[in-house]
């Protein structure tokens, strides 16, 4: 059996571990979303904070498919925990793109890794689709928080914010990935984990 290019159990376990870590971080950060301004800032905080585990994850990626599986699972977790299925759809596509980007550097290039992280992280942005494209349904379930909350969120998120958020998300992804590589260099390479 050809083992060099197929995903073995060790790879799959690594995918699982780093998905779990990213998911826990996302959960903790998303809890702050009850305050309207934080809800918009999620797109900044999540990419920056998950950068460290993700870059560590990328050092273990040597085969095609690992980034894709991580993204599909993150999207599925978003769906199950009450965001909509947009994250799953966008996550799958962006995971595939990120996979090809990182593969172009033979799974070694640091800068392509950062770019791949920034691209694959846009499932976070997909969570806002509900507000942009289906605002009435979105807020009909949230009438109860008072008109101020709705006003505050809609004022922060007019439709033209949609591409802006995408750019912010990717930029923060690049920053997060860059921080991630710095941390890796500072701590993990010395300790021999990488």
């Amino acid at each position, binding site marked *: 059996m050809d083992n060099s290019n197929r995903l073995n159990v*060790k790879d799959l*376990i690594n995918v699982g571990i780093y998905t779990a870590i990213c998911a826990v971080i996302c959960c903790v950060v998303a809890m702050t979303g009850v305050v309207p301004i934080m809800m918009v800032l999620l797109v900044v905080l999540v990419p920056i904070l998950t950068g460290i585990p993700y870059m560590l994850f990328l050092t273990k990626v040597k085969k095609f498919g690992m980034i894709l599986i991580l993204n599909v699972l993150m999207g599925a977790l978003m769906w199950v925990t*009450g965001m909509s299925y947009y994250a799953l759809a966008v996550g799958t596509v962006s995971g595939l793109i990120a996979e090809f980007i990182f593969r172009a550097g033979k799974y070694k290039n640091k800068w392509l890794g950062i770019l791949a992280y920034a691209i694959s992280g846009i499932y976070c942005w997909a969570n806002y689709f509900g507000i942009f494209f289906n605002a009435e349904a979105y807020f009909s379930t949230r009438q109860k928080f*008072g008109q*101020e909350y709705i006003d505050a969120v809609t004022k922060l998120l007019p439709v033209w914010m949609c591409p802006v958020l995408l750019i912010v998300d990717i930029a923060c992804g690049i920053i997060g990935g860059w921080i991630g590589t710095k941390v890796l260099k500072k701590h993990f390479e010395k300790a021999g984990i990488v």
Partner: protein
Amino acid sequence: MVPFYWLLVFLPVVLLFVEKEWKTGLLYVAIYIGSYFGQVALQHELNPAESVLALMLYILTKILPTAILARYIVKTTKVSEFLAAMKRLHITDKLTIPISVIFRFFPTVVEESAAINDAMRMRGIEMGAGKATEAVEYRMVPLMASCSIIGEELSAAAMTRGLDIGKKRSCIWNIRFGVFDWLIMLVCFSCYVWWGIGRFFI
């Protein structure tokens, strides 16, 4: 719609009671009813603080049933049972192995980070005090390190279980649909049917 709403909300508790988890189940019922009526009571003219409170209670009512169901699933499903069941559903290993690791790993990550948090507080590195980057860095790095080590152990354990031989694995449990499974599926499915009738025909 209302009876189905309550039916779905309390289905997880029934499952917990079947597992004899009386305390968690009752606590869940108490919190759920409390927060539900709390946010109903808070519906009118709100100042910002009340608005945030109402929002939190609302999110609680949405998330709690899922959380309880997740607890039930994690508690009652063994990893090998899960893998065997997914195999019989012909779902690829490439998804089921990571999912089973996530199940196993979620509690571990929370535990580890709690322990690291304690240790860091002992050193006087607290969230909000001093530099924020330091607070985050000193928590993330040990967490990554310990998780990566646990991951090595986990893959060694998986090797001994023969997860990577690429042949069909046998399972000592006989996994089948029982009467209860059909019953619960029927209940959940009837909710969809009811929703569909209300949505498209009336």
